[in-house]
């Protein structure tokens, strides 16, 4: 018996260890400790706070979208954070997007429709660099999945601007940020004063609040399937648990027959 326990234990241990390298990797090499922000979508049963995500979209629209594209999103996707079809159509029509060519072979601008992708601030990467001192503002569609720490990192970065500590010199056009790898970031503090964005729902737009909201929005944008995914996961686990019980009972019954047949000496 003792041996059987130890073989099983070894099995469990080995499979657990198999996961360790990735986990250890995920910690990263640069030991910057991110503050843990409390988000509505954390945990197995967490969901995106729709109001926060909508405010976050407002922050993106009024602040971030001046430089950052979100090219994988279309206006219709905003139904996912609780906008109605009418709201989406009205919102989309505020933006001019390029279409064409028309019958004369020319490209033209027209108001966006729900099916259009988010309007991009720059026609291409070269134009984006030219307008930003050579730095390319990255696309934000999957930013939360593309950085260690996810939404916590976005929030920390947006609130992490500070004066450089003594002895640290910052290059021309760069800014000190506590949480950016290497601490020198080309992006000027985007959220810098309370009331920078006027929320319709009377939430006080402190820098922290705006950062939380836009992080929530970006988290949704990166993983719009998150709620459906976890809900399916919970149902899947329950199903497997029940099926597991049944299968276990069947197996026991089948093997009992073998054991009965040859009683122990």
């Amino acid at each position, binding site marked *: 018996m003792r*041996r059987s326990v130890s073989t099983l234990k070894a099995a469990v241990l080995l499979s657990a260890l198999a996961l360790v390298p990735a986990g250890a990797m995920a910690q990263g*090499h640069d030991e910057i400790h991110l503050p843990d922000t409390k988000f509505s979508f954390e945990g197995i049963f967490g969901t995106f706070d729709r109001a926060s995500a909508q405010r976050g979209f407002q922050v993106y629209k009024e602040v971030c979208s001046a430089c950052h594209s979100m090219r994988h999103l279309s206006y219709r996707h905003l139904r996912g954070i609780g906008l109605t079809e009418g709201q989406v159509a009205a919102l989309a029509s505020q933006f001019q997007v390029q279409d064409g060519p028309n019958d004369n072979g020319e490209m033209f601008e027209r108001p966006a429709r729900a099916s259009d992708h988010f309007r991009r601030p720059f026609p291409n990467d070269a134009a984006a660099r030219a307008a930003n001192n050579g730095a390319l503002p990255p696309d934000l569609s999957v930013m939360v*999945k593309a950085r260690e720490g996810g939404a916590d990192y976005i929030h920390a970065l947006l609130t992490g601007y500070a004066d450089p500590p003594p002895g640290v010199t910052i290059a021309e056009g760069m800014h000190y940020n506590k949480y950016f790898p290497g601490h020198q970031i080309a992006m000027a503090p985007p959220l810098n004063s309370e009331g920078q964005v006027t929320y319709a729902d009377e939430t006080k737009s402190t820098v922290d609040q705006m950062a939380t909201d836009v992080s929530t929005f970006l988290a949704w944008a990166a993983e719009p399937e998150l709620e459906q995914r976890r809900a399916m996961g919970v149902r899947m686990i329950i199903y497997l648990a029940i099926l*597991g019980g049944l299968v276990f009972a069947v197996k026991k019954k089948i093997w009992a027959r073998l054991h009965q047949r040859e009683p122990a*000496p």
Partner: protein
Amino acid sequence: MAEGLHDSDVSNPVLRWIDRRLPVISMVQREYGTFPTPRNFNYFWNFGALAMINLVIMIATGVILSMQYAANTGLAFDSVERIMRDVNYGWLLRYAHANGASMFFIVVYMHIWRNLYYGSYKTPRELLFMIGVVIFILMMATAFMGYVLPWGQMSFWGATVITNLFSAIPVVGQHIVTWLWGGFSVDNPTLNRFFSLHYLLPFVITGVVFLHIAALHITGSNNPLGIEPKGPKDTIPFHPYYTSKDSIGIIVYLMVFAILVFFMPNYLGHPDNYIPANPLVTPAHIVPEWYFLPFYAILRAVPNKLGGVAMMGGALVILFFLPWLDSSPVRSMRFRPIAKWAFLLWSVNFVVLGWVGGKPAEQPYILIAQICSAYYFAYFLVILPLLAKIERPLPLPESIAASVLKHRGGGPLPSGATAKPMEKA
């Protein structure tokens, strides 16, 4: 009975008509129904069936995903994001496929571990084992090329680094690399051919898996005692005993799989692969997928390009010689008091290799990788051949049945030699 028809036992007239002309039903009956199987398998014997199921899952999700994927450097990343957002259940299929690859390696590593612990590679199963190593190598190639397809930063730089391994080959190396790329760097032609091969290889694997199973059904399975069944008392029909036992493994496997897919789908991935490939900027810390890390560590342990590549290749190739390197007639480590510990240490060593493989290439990790690489090879080349000569194995039980029945009563276990771990189940 008509001349030339198979003598079928099937009673249903329609099935019988088919079976007499194409005895598939008899075959399944013979190979999976009544197939006499040692009665003392423990749950480590689940992993072969799990690997089979995993292969089916990978092919099913992969074929469906390929209907939405565009193998073009300008479109690949976007098409994957479209799968995640707009294709019905696209996120589920993609996450199942991506994590399915990890599950496949977990399962196959356990399968290999079981093989090594219970000495299943020894005669008469040498060829069965070698075919298994071929499957493992094909899997690695398939997984590597699949990881390139989303065309993120890790895809691109992984492809660059791994294809550059071939440049270590003297004289023709650089030509081979150019040939692999179809250009002067990893680019659109590379992506296209990787997609083509990534689609092809799973079917090659399926073919080799059938050879693996065919070979298995000639020799029959090994078992935890490592002694051959001597009579009818030692075996039980595969169905329903092992179909039911495998089913339990399948449920546990699906649970782990579901937890990964539904609750932590990106845990085993790398954030950098959500950044579109950029040939001008290498990520600060590039690492292969976790299942390659032990071999990656061996590569980096050698401070010489050709040497590193040769060692990494050798770490796989050496497995083909294992049945002859370990000439001890005793299969199961249960009866090999020294080899058992040498092997368990080797297992830990392998995990440590995986751990350093994920660390940056600096001290002390390089030193650890060197020590562990040395032990990896020493186990096969020195320890096993030596132990075959000097180790005194414990006495083997006279038969599987004797061993099983002896402990049914729950009496005190003598020397632990004949435990039956699954008794409780």
